């Protein structure tokens, strides 16, 4: 379904949703930092900056309770988290690189055991993607097969028009339901021209070649040369829209407390450290290798997808200037 919406009507839509009690998550400024966060009003939404952290938090929070416990004498009572408490959500203004990561994450949270924390939120969330009109040096979505106008992961996709407003295209029943419910805010598309979209300046990687090289180069001197300088801060994993490794920890006292699922990072030394003192990834290059392998080989082996959407956040943030796009490009060139 194709429609058009003015900026004013988009704002009206978001304000209506907020008034109805839905959680509307969009890029907004929090203490100077753009982040995807729940809006109090549509006026808070910004469209000109890529949030510092990705959109995955709408489904997979940085830190979340998965149960609580209470102890009395020798008896323990556990209280489950009722998934009914996850609010109906509209995630809006999501960049294609963030929206595309959501179906990628579906794979891991739904294969075999079902993670209801992710999947319930997913079920209750409508994703409204927004095409990108600007890109910076770090953007490389086009290199991993996506683009500034890619609708992957979006239920409804907005493309900005010259002179204001957006073209809207639906890609799922959820998108259509939303438009049908608030029909009066949408108009039939006319021939308005869209604003020229961003053009990230990277060549397309041959992901098959990248994987082929990784298939046969677990041991290679290149790992030392690219990652000896990695400080293991884990920032790359924390800003990544597709990284999903987590820790399970108890917070509380012996009497009562909560069990939580917290983001973790394979770059941390402690991640694979055995209680015996043995650590299979005892050096930083081995940990960085796991990051690349997981994204461009293991996830593909298991789920047939690449665990990277080219958002470039890890490149922008890395304190020692490790550039995953440059590393992967180099790898693709090594493979015949």
């Amino acid at each position, binding site marked *: 379904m194709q429609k058009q919406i003015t900026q004013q009507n988009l704002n009206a839509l978001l304000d209506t949703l907020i008034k109805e009690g839905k959680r509307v998550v969009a890029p907004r400024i929090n203490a100077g930092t753009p982040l995807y966060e729940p809006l109090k009003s549509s006026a808070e939404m910004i469209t000109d900056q890529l949030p510092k952290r990705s959109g995955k938090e709408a489904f997979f929070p940085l830190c979340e309770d998965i149960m609580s416990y209470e*102890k009395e004498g*020798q008896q323990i009572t*556990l*209280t*489950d988290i009722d998934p009914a408490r996850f609010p109906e959500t509209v995630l809006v203004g999501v960049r294609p690189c963030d929206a595309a990561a959501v179906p990628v994450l579906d794979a891991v949270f739904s294969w075999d055991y*079902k993670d209801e924390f992710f999947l319930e939120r997913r079920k209750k969330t409508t994703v409204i993607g927004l095409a990108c009109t600007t890109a910076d040096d770090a953007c490389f979505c086009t290199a991993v097969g996506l683009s500034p106008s890619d609708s992957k992961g979006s239920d409804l996709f907005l493309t900005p028009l010259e002179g204001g407003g957006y073209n809207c295209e639906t890609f799922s029943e959820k998108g259509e339901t939303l438009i049908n419910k608030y029909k009066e805010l949408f108009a039939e598309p006319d021939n308005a021209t869209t604003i020229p979209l961003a053009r990230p300046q990277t060549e397309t990687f041959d992901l098959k070649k990248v994987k082929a090289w990784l298939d046969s180069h677990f041991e290679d001197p290149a790992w030392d040369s690219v990652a000896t300088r990695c400080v293991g801060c884990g920032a790359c994993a924390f800003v990544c829209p597709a990284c999903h490794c987590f820790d399970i920890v108890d917070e509380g*006292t012996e009497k009562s*407390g909560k069990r939580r699922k917290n983001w973790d990072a394979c770059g941390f030394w402690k991640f694979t450290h055995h209680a015996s003192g043995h650590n299979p990834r005892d050096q930083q290059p081995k940990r960085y290798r796991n990051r690349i392998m*997981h994204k461009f080989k*293991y996830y593909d082996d298991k789920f047939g997808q690449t665990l990277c959407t080219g958002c470039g956040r890890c490149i922008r943030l890395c304190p020692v200037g490790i550039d995953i796009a440059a590393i992967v490009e180099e790898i693709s060139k090594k493979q015949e």
Partner: protein
Amino acid sequence: MCDHSNQNIYLPHLATVAEVIDETPDVRTLKLVFQDQQVRDSFSFRAGQFAEYSAFGAGESTFCIASSPTRKGYIECCFRAVGRVTEELRRLEPGDSIGVRGPYGNSFPIEEFYGKNLVFVAGGIALPPLRTLIWNCLDLRDKFGDITIVYGARTEADLVYKRELQEWEKRSDVRLVKTVDPGGNGPEWDGQVGFVPTVLEQAAPSAENTVALVCGPPVMIKFTLPVLEKLGFSDDQVYTTLENRMKCGLGKCGRCNVGNVYVCKDGPVFTARQVKAMPLEY
């Protein structure tokens, strides 16, 4: 508990500590009985599978289920106190509550072992993952040929399941070879003295129609595999378990992988052939 309890894959079952047994000064067995009647009746597992055990307030730890699936109504775990969670678990007393999630992972393909001879090779605290299988096989004794158990620890005091070692020693249908490292033997020691791989080589079990099941610290495994090869075992005749650090046990948290193999889902039981095909990341 709300009625979504069966949907939250991270929510443990509660069990009561029925018995506490000190195996060594820092290794303890807990015998556990599920509190919910329905769980008690329905909980079933296979030898080789593991579970996540909760000490609430400290967290979860991964241990194999050390009792045999043939022994119903309870499960046992056996662990060394080495850190935060295991220290807390060690504080538990009979009547206390514990959380258990599982069973997880694959298991020993016991049906494939029917009609074959079995050689168990274990070192130190790594007897529990084989002990579940040993009892499973002994409880179905007719289905197997000769059973040999080679078990060693650094010192006499470090041997776990001491009373069961005596029981196996007495049985005419089991050959037990126990050993301690040189210097680890006291005046009363009636077993061998020497490292597990050396003692295994001397015991020289035949490889014909035999499977070997090996669990132990990495260094023991490293020196045991060549001995088995020398004795004529092919890599498909040898099984072991991997113990990469785990959190979820469910193939989600991304912690336990060796290359593209998720130890919590594809393992923890592997043949030597499978392990040799993996990158060195365990």
